[in-house]
């Protein structure tokens, strides 16, 4: 947001600029802060992130981690480390990423409703994914994005 090109301040003053509107994702900070290396095993990059964030080395109990190089010698102490108090700076593209995934989800849902006739689970007609067809459903989807209204 506050990017002003170096040494152009004297002429940039008063400039009108345009940027893609990016709203904060409601609840994301809360979600992010409770992520912990103990509870977020789903994300395969999270251990690496944790080590970088806290400049430390996690104990590698998985043998396939052996080849991983880590520049930190200090051992991590996950009991004392936490994302709850670290500086938080939300990437302005976050909402776009989430909405993109939601668009695919909506497309898949529409496709499933039509191709599988509302049956539960994956039907045989959809096991061979017709990506052009998915694209059609994706483009015809319309939904409230992640930064839109809350439904509680």
């Amino acid at each position, binding site marked *: *947001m*506050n990017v*002003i090109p170096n040494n152009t*301040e*004297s*002429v*940039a*003053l*008063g*400039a*009108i*600029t*345009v*940027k*893609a*509107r990016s*709203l*904060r994702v*409601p609840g994301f900070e809360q979600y992010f802060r409770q992520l912990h290396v103990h509870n977020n095993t789903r994300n395969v990059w999270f251990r690496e992130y944790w080590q970088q964030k806290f400049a430390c080395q996690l104990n590698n109990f998985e043998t396939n981690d052996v080849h991983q190089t880590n520049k930190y010698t200090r051992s991590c102490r996950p009991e004392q480390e936490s994302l709850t108090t670290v500086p938080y700076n939300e990437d302005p593209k976050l909402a776009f990423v989430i*909405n993109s995934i*939601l*668009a695919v989800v909506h497309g898949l849902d529409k496709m499933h409703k039509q191709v599988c006739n509302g049956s539960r689970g994956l039907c045989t007609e959809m096991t061979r994914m017709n990506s052009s067809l998915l694209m059609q459903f*994706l*483009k*015809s*989807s*319309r*939904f*409230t*994005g992640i*930064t*839109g*209204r*809350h*439904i*509680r």
Partner: protein
Amino acid sequence: MIVIESSMNLISGEEVWFDENGDGPARYDILNLQGNADDIDHHLHYVQVGTWSTGKLTLNTSAIRFFSDQRPFEEINVRRFCSEACQNGHVKVNLFEQFHCYLLLKIFYRNIQTTNDAVGNVIHVVMLLYLMKQHVSLVHLVSLPMKIKPLVVFFR
């Protein structure tokens, strides 16, 4: 279920859809770079003065502070020329669509007239090697003007 507006978002909707070209809704914030009244050169910050949402412009013109609203034009130190002058012994080369000064290092070959093309090729090979050493990509290299063939090697 109760539908309520998000507290941080007074713009209702933020709907996602795709037009006939597959493009999503275009939404932009319009910002104005403003300085503090007491310290213009520092603390520059962007003030949102409007939005553009798929064709609908909302602009708070009274919030806009143009340059002349903030500083007299005479105060600004704007230099008006195409590019900085080169030092002695340097020559301008248009590289990356910007002007750089290259040092005129060495002149090869005495019989310029007879072997113009051959020498030109040699020079370009030398330049190529030098630029590769400098990690200048070939994409940039093709923008090198071929007019700078007068049998010199430019070193930055």
